[in-house]
């Protein structure tokens, strides 16, 4: 083993010294993109990164496709689908589709993929994306049925998002590790090379089927992981990158001012909120009192936060979900305007005329959390601010030891309210409200097959949650895409960078 380390070390040195720089540009039809985070595994079932979603949409296809602009569901690897009963969907598959390794896409691939990912023992990283499926069954070569564990109306949404189809023979042999190093799919881009976490090279799939994703135009995509955003900007300036994304607002503003680049901003589904311990899991906390929770809601100037810090397409959010999500009824939510005087009155009524002191936790966006903290201080809630690693906060949260915390949730880009409201208000370990009435509405909404019944009950749940001020919803996030003037790209609101829609100017 020691020898292996030594050998690969020497190989690493040699590689670093010998590999020639493959600099290209529009002339070479190569789009050079930067990732910020090291992606753990290209196999989309075994990562939980935004970068992973981007590659997933490029390399693989789902049975269904949701148009990111119109939100309309269209057939992709399936041409049509039908609910046989509440827990069975039948799909007619598209014929003549081939994987990048040349094998044909048939019902066997769907059966294998579904049965593999649905089996918890195989350890798919984001269980929520797949654990609603029980199994799949082949009817004939191009007809397949997917069986659900229970009623799950959001199935179509999940099948058009995180659930991609893998080649059965190849995946059975390669497994997640092999798939991560040499991915094979049906998607618009083939993977040419992978250096885990560091470098990904894609090439246009010339034989891409007639998919609603559209045909790719850019021939090569070269993605490097550059952790420092300043370095990414330097690469952009020196002409060695064509596209960067997730650029912080202040940097994006400066880049726009130079006039050399195209800066576009789009909202994302991520919502920031304050979670409060309404059920008193952390002991006898002031947040058990609804007046205190309402005071928190009134204390924070969310409009100012959006304008001064988040900027761009961010909006003030009053719902415990993202407004575009199915069932996220904005009108049902009680919105609390910024009124520090009222907040002080409510605190006084609740028996805290001089305020109180509480621990306040956050795990990301320190500057937002600090701004929120100072708004709370202004009405008399003294915060003992603690910034933790995500996993550490998560642990405290599950044990019910966080009286108030600044948290965010991105719903994995699933455009259904169940991906957020139901995640946090169904008495799970992260639920600090533990409200029976909310649970009742959500149980109906999550399992009803009639869309109207679902909508009605999500609305009731949202009304209940906001009336009780279990949370203080804050704002939605946004992301900036910066490209050279040679690149034409219109971002979508789901924070998925789609190479198929990139063209050269």
């Amino acid at each position, binding site marked *: *083993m*020691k020898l*292996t*380390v*030594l*050998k*690969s*070390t*020497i*190989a*690493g*040195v*040699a*590689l*670093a*010294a010998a*590999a*020639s*720089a*493959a600099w290209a540009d529009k002339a070479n039809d190569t789009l050079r993109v930067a990732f910020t985070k*090291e992606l*753990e*595994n290209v196999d989309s079932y*075994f990562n*939980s990164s935004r970068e992973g979603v981007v590659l997933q949409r490029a390399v693989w296809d789902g049975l269904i496709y949701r148009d990111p602009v119109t939100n309309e569901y269209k057939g992709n690897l399936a041409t049509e689908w039908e609910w046989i009963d509440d827990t069975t969907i039948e799909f007619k598959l598209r014929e003549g589709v081939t994987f990048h390794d040349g094998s044909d896409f048939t019902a066997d691939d769907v059966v294998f993929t579904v049965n593999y990912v649905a089996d918890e023992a195989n350890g798919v*990283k*984001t*269980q*929520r994306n797949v654990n609603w499926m029980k199994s799949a069954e082949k009817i004939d070569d191009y007809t397949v049925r997917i069986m659900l564990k229970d009623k799950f109306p959001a199935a179509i949404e999940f099948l058009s998002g995180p659930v991609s189809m893998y080649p059965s023979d190849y995946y059975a042999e390669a497994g*997640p*590790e092999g798939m*991560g190093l040499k991915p094979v799919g049906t998607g618009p881009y083939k993977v040419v090379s992978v*250096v*885990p*976490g*560091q470098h990904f090279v894609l090439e246009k799939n010339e034989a891409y089927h007639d998919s609603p994703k559209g045909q790719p135009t850019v021939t090569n995509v070269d993605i*490097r*992981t*550059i*952790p*420092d955003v*300043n*370095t990414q900007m*330097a*690469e952009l*300036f*020196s002409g*060695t990158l064509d596209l960067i994304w997730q650029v912080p607002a202040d940097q994006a503003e400066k880049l726009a001012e130079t006039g050399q680049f195209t800066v576009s901003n789009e909202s994302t589904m991520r919502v920031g909120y304050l979670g409060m311990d309404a059920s008193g899991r952390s002991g006898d906390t002031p947040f058990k009192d609804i007046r205190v929770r309402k005071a928190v809601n009134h204390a924070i100037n969310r409009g100012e936060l959006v304008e001064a810090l988040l900027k761009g397409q961010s909006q003030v959010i009053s719902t415990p979900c993202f407004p575009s999500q199915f069932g996220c009824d904005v009108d049902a939510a009680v919105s609390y305007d910024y009124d520090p005087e009222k907040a002080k009155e409510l605190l006084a009524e609740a028996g805290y005329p001089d305020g109180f002191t509480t621990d306040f936790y956050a795990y990301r966006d320190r500057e937002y959390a600090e701004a929120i903290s100072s708004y709370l201080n202004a009405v008399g809630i003294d915060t003992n601010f603690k910034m*933790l*690693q*995500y*996993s*550490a906060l*998560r*642990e405290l949260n*599950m044990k019910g030891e966080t009286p108030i915390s600044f948290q965010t949730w991105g719903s994995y880009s699933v455009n259904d309210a169940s991906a957020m409201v139901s*995640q946090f208000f169904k008495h*799970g*370990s992260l639920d600090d409200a533990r409200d029976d009435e909310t649970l009742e509405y959500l149980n109906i909404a999550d399992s009803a097959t009639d869309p109207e019944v679902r909508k009605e009950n999500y609305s009731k749940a949202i009304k209940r949650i906001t009336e009780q001020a279990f949370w203080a919803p804050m704002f939605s996030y946004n992301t900036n895409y910066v490209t050279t003037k040679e690149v034409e790209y219109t971002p979508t609101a789901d924070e998925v960078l789609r190479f198929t829609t990139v063209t050269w100017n």
Partner: protein
Amino acid sequence: MLQFILKRLGLAVLVAFTVSFISFSLLFLSGDPAAALAGETASGEDIEAIRRLYGFDRPMLVQYGDWLMSALRGDFGESYYFKLPVASLIGDRLGVTMLLGVCGISFALLTAVPLGVVAAIRPNSIIDRIALFLSVAGQAMPSFWFGLILIVVFAIQLGWLPPSGAATWKHFIMPTIVLGYYAMPAIMRLTRAGMLDVLSSDYIRTARAKGANETRVLFRHALRNAIIPVVSLAAVQMGFMLGGSIVVESIFALHGAGYLAWESIARNDLPTVQALILIFSMFYIVFTFLADVLNAWLDPRMRSS
């Protein structure tokens, strides 16, 4: 001499164990590894299952013992994050870090020692002033800032060098300068102080009095003695560079072991962090040990201490 080496070796091994144990235990304070592994959507039961599966429910001492036994066999386990063997993951990245470290320390020595010598020969001259300025600036300037300044000047404005990456030797020029510059001031000040001290000593006066030429006095008699503390400092700096090039690796997007360590801590990737800590502390210990041996060889008086 042999006895001296054995004594130092024993000490080095003890230090290695102590460091690895302390780091191992500290890691458990940085959050629940099971929760980190389970990811955002996991329920309490999922986390419990993972805790049992990975053996986090066992006493820490048992976990440490287990890990150490495998590590001695060369098996560092599988990275929680990449799901790849830690040994190959580190092997892939150690090359960049080692190359950078060697270049960095060479750059530092090749610039700092001559500057220190010249500064000592002409104390308070203009060269001494420049050297002083350089060393103060080197200590005061954070390396991320210095790195970005270099990128702005040489990659963007002049376009001579690529801003980041590790594809060619050109990619290593700026990182080498940034990393080396950080170690330069200490080496230079120590060379200067050592030279000044030695040059005013009796035996140098004697050497000059008997008419030895100045070059011979400086390099044969003075530098050989003045360089001894520099050797140990350079060894420590080298250890620091191999483990501490995190900032430089991050700015220049060099995916080396330092950056891997930093990211692995944030990701609670315990097997990777533990292996890296062991490897980094081994570097440190080996270089310190080599410095001791080298010093003892250069200066026989040290062997008895």
